[in-house]
């Protein structure tokens, strides 16, 4: 379950175990049988920390989802609410407590706030007259959740909005606390670099907290050599661009939450027994966990999508060959060995079948005209083509009433790449958007302006071209199959944030002082004193380990780029990524998007795309084919879909593939 956390350069399982220990301690504090009432948003993050079995061992007998009215009956001594500190949740809890049947034996109430308790929430409970009903009010400090072997996330949704729109620094405080926890477990980080206002704040808080705990220094050899704090608003361009890695595209299209993705079920029906498949059709979306524990996924997640097809078909050949081995197994010993490998092979097989299906779903989208047109405009903006004029594609999209998120994402991108829009252009877009989507979106546009995603050009000079050239943000010859530069993750655009990390490692920020000054916020370097005797003696050729913390979110493509840098032979630095939240452009614009009718506007981009596929999918589509071209013949003359039996290609008598389906499928 958690083994993949320990494989990486830094054993993040230690952090997970510490979190589990805390949870057990809290549960034991409420003696006797318990029922947990869950804030739905928390089950995901908690799932990364613990299983139900752990709760069960500590006498948790029932679990409910938090909702108004009377609590469901449960014969337990304790009722524990696991909630985020949100005011609206307090009202529901109060409702629960008030409607509790007093005739029934009284049950003890407890609240566990995650990740922090809030005085505001407690005040609300008091106003509702229920504060006194709680035996325990506690907090469960879940600042940084280990996501993967090299990835930590705070999973705090509002962080970007809070920092850049509301200017509330609470999440920065939590970040600093999270980093202190990390240092307590993995040793003091000797060097801190940063860029941006929020980064500066976090660093200040860390240094201050360190002074306060001066007495309780941990005697641990530092695992991290340096920490890089980056504000999201230093690089707003990257999350606005469409991610083009496999994992990034899954996120763009379906949205990954807490490491899980929900997919349309039809494609996956084939994995049940073929005859029965039509009997009980799955109607619920298929939920899949995505992390590096799955060998195949670890291999392809960070590839550019254009390289995924080749990787999958290569894998298919290897697995077919492995299954063919059984014919060669003659002796009892050989057969035994083959059988012992079967479970592993079967797991690999079903993993291959799953990812082939996902890749197919995504390919339907990436090959669509709309996707291509959108990408073309994005790339024009990123290369600085006509960013100072009204873009006809955006104009057309508005006229067609495309989802507002898409429009806002493109307009914001144009604004960022032009260092603000010209008054005339800005006014034109504003008028068109308000006329088409409703005047109340005045508020949405206003919010976008406040965060800097959308702005009016103030100075006549557009400094984006300088930044682009100095940091080599656009690479004409990006190699998607065998990348030699991070620009492969966006098929040409190298994420600015990652370039900053790359330059910092070598040759250092001094070489780009000019550009750093053009980007918002201060840049700085701090050193933290290590206790004597804990100075690391670096071996010749040993890599440095850097923790990169994105304040306000990181995209999967950026993570892919950092992993690419870690793997470079002469890179010299390995990266661990930490963030307040994993995001994409739709999400970023969405949290700012103002809508009174939730569900109407929210997640338009990712919601509308899958719907289209759902309608299109044929439920009897039991046969998967790899990217249209079958490779059964050397000259690729076979255009038939490759037949797969249980996910394994089946060769026909003449070597060509056999398919019972018409060729025009």
């Amino acid at each position: 379950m958690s083994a993949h956390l320990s494989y990486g350069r830094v054993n993040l399982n230690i952090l997970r175990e510490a979190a589990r220990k805390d949870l057990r301690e809290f549960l034991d504090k409420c003696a006797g049988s318990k029922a947990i009432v869950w804030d739905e948003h928390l089950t995901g993050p908690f799932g990364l920390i613990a299983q139900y079995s752990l709760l069960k061992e500590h006498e948790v007998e029932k679990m409910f989802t938090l909702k108004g009215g009377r609590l469901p009956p449960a014969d337990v001594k304790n009722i524990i609410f696991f909630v985020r500190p949100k005011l609206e949740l307090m009202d529901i809890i109060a409702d629960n407590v008030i409607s509790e049947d007093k005739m029934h034996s009284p049950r003890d109430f407890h609240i566990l706030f995650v990740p922090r308790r809030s005085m505001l929430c407690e005040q609300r409970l008091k106003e509702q007259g229920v504060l006194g009903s709680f035996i325990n009010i506690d907090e469960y400090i879940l600042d940084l959740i280990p996501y993967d072997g090299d990835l930590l996330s705070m999973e705090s949704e509002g962080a970007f909005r809070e920092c850049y729109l509301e200017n509330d620094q609470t999440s920065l405080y939590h970040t600093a606390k999270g980093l202190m926890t990390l240092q307590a477990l993995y040793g003091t980080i000797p060097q801190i670099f940063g860029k941006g206002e929020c980064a500066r704040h976090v660093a200040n808080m860390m240094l201050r907290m360190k002074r306060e705990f001066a007495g309780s220094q941990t005697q641990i050899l530092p695992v991290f050599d340096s920490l890089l704090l980056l504000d999201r608003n230093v690089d707003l361009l990257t999350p606005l661009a469409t991610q083009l890695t496999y994992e990034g595209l899954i996120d763009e299209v379906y949205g990954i939450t807490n490491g899980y993705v929900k997919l349309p079920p039809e494609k996956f029906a084939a994995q049940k027994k073929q005859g029965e498949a039509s009997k009980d059709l799955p109607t619920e979306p298929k939920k899949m966990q995505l992390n590096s524990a799955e060998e195949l996924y670890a291999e392809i997640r960070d590839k550019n999508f254009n390289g995924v097809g080749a990787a999958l078909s290569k894998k298919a050949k290897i697995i077919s060959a492995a299954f063919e081995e059984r014919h060669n197994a003659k002796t009892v010993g050989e057969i035994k060995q083959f059988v012992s490998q079967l479970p592993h092979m079967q797991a690999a097989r079903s993993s291959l079948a799953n990812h082939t299906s996902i890749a197919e779903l995504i390919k339907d989208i990436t090959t669509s005209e709309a996707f291509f047109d959108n990408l073309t405009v994005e790339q024009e903006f990123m290369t600085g083509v006509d960013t100072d004029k009204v873009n006809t594609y955006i104009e057309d999209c508005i006229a067609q009433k495309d989802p507002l998120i898409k429009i806002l994402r493109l307009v914001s991108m144009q604004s960022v790449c032009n260092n603000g829009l010209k008054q005339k252009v800005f006014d034109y877009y504003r008028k068109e958007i308000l006329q088409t989507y409703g005047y109340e979106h005045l508020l949405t546009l206003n919010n976008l302006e406040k965060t800097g995603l959308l702005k009016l050009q103030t100075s006549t000079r557009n400094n984006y071209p300088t930044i682009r050239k100095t940091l080599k943000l656009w690479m004409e010859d990006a190699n998607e199959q065998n990348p030699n530069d991070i620009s492969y993750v966006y098929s040409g655009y190298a994420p600015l944030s990652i370039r900053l990390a790359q330059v910092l490692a070598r040759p250092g920020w001094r070489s780009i002082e000019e550009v750093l000054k053009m980007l918002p916020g201060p840049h700085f370097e701090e050193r933290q004193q290590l206790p004597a005797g804990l100075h690391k003696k670096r071996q010749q050729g040993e890599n440095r380990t850097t923790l990169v913390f994105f304040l306000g979110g990181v995209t999967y493509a950026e993570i892919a780029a950092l992993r690419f840098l870690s793997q470079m032979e002469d890179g010299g630095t390995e990266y661990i990524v930490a963030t307040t939240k994993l995001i994409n452009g739709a999400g970023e614009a969405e949290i700012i998007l103002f809508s009174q009718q939730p569900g109407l506007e929210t997640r338009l981009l990712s919601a509308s795309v899958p719907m289209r596929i759902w309608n299109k999918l044929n439920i009897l589509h039991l046969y998967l084919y790899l990217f249209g071209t079958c490779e059964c013949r050397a000259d690729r003359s076979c255009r038939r879909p490759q037949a797969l039996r249980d996910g394994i290609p089946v060769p026909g008598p003449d070597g060509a593939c056999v398919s019972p389906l018409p060729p025009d499928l």
Partner: protein
Amino acid sequence: MFLSGGPRLGFKTSDFSREPCRAYGKSQVNYISHNQWVCVRFIQRQLLLTERWKMIRGKPDDDEYWNSTKFKAFTFDDEDNEFTRLKESKRAVNSIRSLVEDEDEEDDVEKVNWSGEPIGSISWSVKETASSIRSTGEVRDQSSPKIDNTPSLRKNSSGYSLSSLFKGKAKTGSLQHFSESFSEQSNRNYGPELRKPKSEYKDYISDWTPEETVKRMQQGKAFSLEKFRSLQDKLLLLDETVKAHDGNVITAVLIFLKKSLSKEILFRELITREIALRHFIHYLKEMGENKLLVELFKTLGRSEDMALMQYKDHLNIKDENRRRDFLKNCLSLPFSQEDATHVLDHYTLLERQIIIEANDKHVESGSQADIFKKYPRKASILNMPIITTLYYSCFYHYGEPEGTYSSPANIRKTFRISDKQFLLTCLGARAKLKSWFDVDALFTTKNWLGYTKKRSPIGFHRIVDILQKNNAPVQVLQEYVSLVEDTEQKINLAQKYKCHDIIINTYRDLKDRQLLIEYRGKVETDSSDYKKIQELLGNSQIRWKN
């Protein structure tokens, strides 16, 4: 009575526990004297004591008897039994099947249910335990999730706990009270208060400096803000809080200041304290205290923010007439110049929608007009964007004189709709109704000599797309395809929509014999198009280029 506490008293402690809080809540508002305060605290503490007793003793014995599952009484109306047994056997069968058939479920493979959640994961169990409410404990055991396979802890890591790392900040696992008060509730988990070292009592009475107070607040210990009486003290406290960067504590202090200072003074002091101010604004937003927020913005001179803030309120008004009136009042707010025009448009739009809606509803019910009978309205036009309203008007009110509110021409003029938008919207509506004549008229212009010509502010290829989406017949499509300027694009569109005539004419104009011969193979042999090609190829007048 207070000293003995405990369950022996014969009343349920929980009945009481809520009361003191209310009493206490009141006392806050009235700013009771110190003596009274001590008294309230005493009562409070005693009641907490009784609760602590409850914790230690657990439930009264008889309660335990009646509630434990072991002694569950049999009742006749317990229909669940049959139901649960069925479920039980079904589960058993299922589990056997999975043993026999499912080869994938090896021991080292994580069990996953259909929706992909690992069995035993928390979100899976929430559903599972909630759905088994009606079943008995035994059934649940059968389905109980697999034991976690996590390898046992490594020794070096087992000793860590996130909270224990910060002994200095030791969490107290407790109620921390932010109000200007009290509460040694922090220790209520740890047994009777009597056992507490005397030194801790010092906590209530001692004078903490602002630094100490902030630290205590952060650590979740009891604290009191009441002793910060003078303005100067309060401001010192605020500044100290801001330095700690803990939003939770900053908000708590701000609430205290909001209660104990007049808003004029509070606002005046906040102006110079940027961070505290931001937190205060966020707090007011969260609490929905819009009135105060508007006042604050006014004091700060942030008039545009104030205007938007007030404008936002219209979304909470459901009744359209009241919403319209509200928007009318908004017109006088100090918006930026651009926003002001949009807000005015918003008001005008709603005003007009109300009129149109009332009128159309009337017409529809009287079924005086064919159009409403043929295409009944699906929803009301109220609160729709202006472009949607224009579409509606082009659909139901086309051709009305410009003087009427509902006519497309009037809407176009009033809301300064661009030529492109107007054309596209109009085209969409008329094409939907298959009024090809109206479509034609949209593009036809007469020059001063009386000749007609088709013109469009957008490329004709897009017009063709829109028409095609509305299932326009080939004759109509053909006319617009022929107007596409770019030859290559024209050919592509013509091929896509099978406008043979255009292709043949284009090849003729290009004098491209080869392409024409090639195309002859694509049309049916006995069609008029085929004949036309034959005629052209036989025409000796044309000078073919190949």
